[in-house]
């Protein structure tokens, strides 16, 4: 499953970032979003969702959300 399927408020562990875009992957990494790290969806919105990664809040669109595989 990916972040689009995540329940709000539940903490998941990132399994993999599935994208060909190496820069995006590195960017998500620098925010602390990489395999083995926890991530929590705060809310789902039209076109994306708000997530909590480390001690920050980010809004990401569906494209990125679907690239973040979680378990």
């Amino acid at each position, binding site marked *: 499953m990916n972040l689009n399927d995540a329940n709000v408020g539940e903490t998941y562990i990132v399994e993999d970032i599935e994208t060909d875009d*190496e820069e995006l992957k590195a960017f998500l990494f620098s*925010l602390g979003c990489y395999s083995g790290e926890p991530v929590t969806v705060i809310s789902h*919105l039209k*076109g994306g969702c708000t997530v909590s990664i480390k001690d920050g809040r980010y*809004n990401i669109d569906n494209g*990125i959300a679907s690239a973040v595989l979680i378990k």
Partner: protein
Amino acid sequence: MRIAFAGNPNSGKTTMYNALTGENERVGNWAGVTIGKKESPIKKEFYDFVEEIIAVDLPGAYSMSPFTPEEGITSGYVRDENPDAIINIVDATNLSRSLFFTTQLLELGIPVVVALNKSDINEKQNTEIDTEALSKKLNCPIIKTVSTSSDKTGLKEAVNAAVELNGNGQKAPYLQADIDLHDKKAVEAEDRKRFDFVNKIVKEVETRKVLTKERNSQDKVDSVLTNKVAGILIFAAVMWAVFWISQSKVGPLIADWLVGWIETFQGWVSGLLENSSPLLQAILADGIVGGVGAVVGFLPLVMVMYFLIALLEDCGYMARVSVVMDPIFKRVGLSGKSIIPIIIGTGCGIPGIMASRTIRDERERRATAMLTTFIPCGAKIPVIALFAGAFFSGASWVNALMYFVGILLIFLGALLIKGITGYKYRKSFFIMELPSYKLPSLKRACFSMLERAKAYIIKAATIILVCNCVVQLMQTFNWKFQVVGEDAADTSILASIASPFAVLLVPLGFGAWQLAAAAITGFIAKENVVGTLAVVYSITRFIDTDELALTGGANEVAVTMGLTTVTALAYLMFNLFTPPCFAAIGAMNSEMKSAKWLWGAIGLQLGTGYTVAFLVYQFGTLFTEGHLGNAFIPGLIAVLIMAAIVVVISRRSRQKFDVEYSLHNKGTGASV
């Protein structure tokens, strides 16, 4: 000595830089406000040494490997320019992310001082950071700072700590293993180790009472502000309120007082010139004082608007607007990031265009730079206010309407660009940090407002003054340098230059040479439209001193210009949506870095201004008078020709893409 300010986006680097240097660089509560390097000496009161210290403010970065173009400036500077020390500004509320970049900076061998900024927010949330333990683990001084506080907590200590370390090296607490940097796997493995190192430190030095992942009251506000329906309505209401307050309430109140002074001054000048030649009187009293005065009279409206926009930028709302607009902008090939240049462009198009630099995708970045100036900027406010007052009885909705028409044109323009640049719909990603809301600083907003006022007055006293004089002279003389009589105004230099252009504007409903002249001077600075109109029609009382309404003799102005409500609206929109002033075109040029795109932008803007004015005039006349306006057919032909050009260009560019694509295939085929 030079001290570089580096840290994550929105950690407060520029706020600290401003506090230390007394500069007034743009700050805002979202990631990516600073887009270039800034340098200034630190005020003496913040250190105890003799030598001058230069602070270097850099754009925010999350790591040494850049993601967006402006992040590259930061890693490039600290790596190659050898600053004597680095003050690493760390957002104390997000230590676990920030220290990743910190440990990279500590490896450069340049002495680092960590400023734990926003320490006041941590105190409120009962988050404690053991600075002594952290300092030992990182081998560098850690100073708690609050740049926004009135006593500048910790700033002097941070600067002094950096000065003391000058000349020392820096012992890195964590050293990356010697790996092949082109090997992605090895790099990632190393970065993981680095984050593990950071996580371990954070666990030891930080005690949190409130976990970030828990839903808090700010998230509740967010769920309303970023809601797909409510969010857009709120955004519309907020922008409408900005215009209503600045254009109809507070702005005119101050403007009224100011115009009183200007009129007194004008009377005084006329009095002084009583015995001199009528020509000199006309040039000095009407041309210079009147024309410039007409422009300056609108200054309060612009100031109040700047004040309100500064409050918006400071509170954290901008990031939410870009979230709510993202799905809509995506449909036309842009993203939510494009909304920030647009809102900044409401103040002035130039910083707006420059703000497009934070957009990662090149096509998206150029498209945003191209379209940003459809939003009426501060310089267009006098033009709007003048027409709103003269033809729409000062209605505040005119400005809000122009704003939303501007947004609509941005959508349509983006669609067009998407169509022309064609086929390749590159997937664009949107990610935006949602900063904590904060109470906007009134002091900051006042600074921003005064800074703008200064720039506006300087512009009025230089460019606009010169333009008004030139216009006045060109209108006074004919080509033989004889003074033209009142009945022969059409023989003046100005009339003969502007007339050919005026012919082109007949299908738009305003074929008078005076109006054409005003529109042309508008390319130098948009305020000139007001100044030139004031000069060519000898009207100066644009703001009534008795009724607090814009333009006292509204009807008088309307009659003098010979415009109906419909033609006035067409003329206003023509001026708003044609290319911006030359300075903004220059900014577009430097952001786009492509002559093709620049000319495309100018063509698009000319075409848009012409077409919008044509449609407003022709259909407006049809609705109000039951028949089409003048010269419908020639106008229609002009618009159709422009449409044809767009079609041809987009066909060509698509074909070129196809050719490129097939060549590419052939190329690879040949090499195999």
